[in-house]
């Protein structure tokens, strides 16, 4: 698992120790470039913690560049590699901008909080229900999941594929597990 401290990346990017705010599009684009460069050094499948703990604030433009465009790139049909993201240290101060860009772009992500992980952002009802059930069950096969949900297996498989493409669940063999499952729920 990789850990990326956004405040460190920010300071390297803008070459100034004093800045702790993720503001402006050029800054956001530079931070995202650095994150992608770090990801290129990793193996095929990676889980990366994007850590906001030391970031004072993020504005809408920067959130769009850092978060939305990163997720869009790795949720595309042909992502650079099989990368998953867990967002840590996101507070109320960051949330307004992050929520706005997720809504605008139709994206969802997994937040790590003191009491576990949860998925945030717009998500079809069936996918949200499947994600929450996988989180509760832990590593689970589609057949078992369909039984628990009392749903058609093909529909469950379809929802899981949607969640995997969105980088919200990982496929492990024939089973699935939510991103950040090690943190519990």
């Amino acid at each position, binding site marked *: 698992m990789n850990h990326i401290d956004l405040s460190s990346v920010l300071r390297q990017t*803008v070459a*100034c120790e004093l800045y702790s*705010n993720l*503001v402006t*599009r050029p800054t956001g684009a530079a931070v995202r470039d650095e994150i992608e460069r770090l990801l290129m050094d990793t193996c095929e499948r990676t889980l990366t913690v994007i850590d906001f703990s030391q970031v004072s*604030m993020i*504005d809408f*433009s920067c959130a769009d560049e850092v978060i*939305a465009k990163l997720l869009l790139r790795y949720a595309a049909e042909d992502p650079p590699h099989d990368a998953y993201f867990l967002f840590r240290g996101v507070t109320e*101060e960051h949330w307004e901008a992050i929520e706005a860009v997720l809504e605008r772009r139709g994206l969802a992500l997994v937040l790590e909080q003191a009491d576990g992980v949860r998925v945030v952002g717009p998500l079809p009802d069936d996918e949200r229900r499947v994600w929450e059930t996988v989180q509760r069950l832990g590593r689970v096969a589609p057949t078992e999941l369909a039984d628990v949900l009392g749903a058609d297996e093909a529909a469950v498989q379809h929802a899981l594929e949607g969640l995997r493409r969105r980088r919200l669940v990982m496929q492990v063999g024939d089973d699935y597990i939510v991103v950040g499952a090690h943190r519990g729920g």
Partner: protein
Amino acid sequence: MTTVVNVPPSLDDHSFDDVLRQVESVPADANILLDARHVRWASPFGLTALLTFAQTRSEMPTLAVPELEETTSYWARAGFFRHAEALYELHGPYPKRAGGSDSNVLLEITSIAKSEDVHDVVGRIQQKAQLMLRELNLDAKATVGFAMTLSEICQNIVEHAGRGGWVMVQTYRWTKRLGRRVVVIAVADAGVGFRKSLESAPGKERGDRWDDAAALEDAVIRGVSRFRDPGRGQGLAGVRRYLGRWDGKLSVRSGTAKIAIVPNWDDDVPLAEHLPSFPGAQVQVTIPERGSPQPSPKGRTQR
């Protein structure tokens, strides 16, 4: 021949149009003297617009500074003369040094030309904003949104204006309209303006009605940007949401039009057209103190 332009005694976003009306038919390369000797009060909009106005002239204009020492002293503390010295030929006495800071000036007039300037102003405003918003009885939650608002409207200059502009943040008691304190952000530039910026969008189709007002409606109300990227245009939308939450006002002037998101406490018009032309874009954000009005016999005070 020099055209003399009288600057109103109280200079704000409305009265600045009086200045522009007087120069409507004056060529950009004509000599102009702005007579500000009788100015007693200027809002952040007024001060940043004065600097922006000078940028629109091809011949350096002359500015007769206010006669009232209290006013020139305030303008100096607001950082006005520091920038004006490069843009105007200044006539009359004014303090060459600011003479200490002003607690009501949260951010003195600051030049914005590049992304690093936005980092700088956001960093400088954060601590002061927390104290100031507490004084205005606003929730601590308002602080981050305030810095985000400042960041986004300053970025409009960097991303769209094509040249530098200015920002200023100040608090004052607005007796005439509100009877309570407000905090005001003013951002002004003499760049390409909203209409030309949107016209530069690839494949932009112009409807039957396409003018400065239509461009402002597209950008401010519909979140349209010159970029095709659907993630663009979120800044002003976010600013509108923030101001809606704190009963604030947003007004954006560009070219011959001004659009405003008007809260209940104000009686401005939502859309003003056929105003005297002013290049670039000028944005004003006003957030009022929370709580019941507290009328003051002193009127709108600036010290």
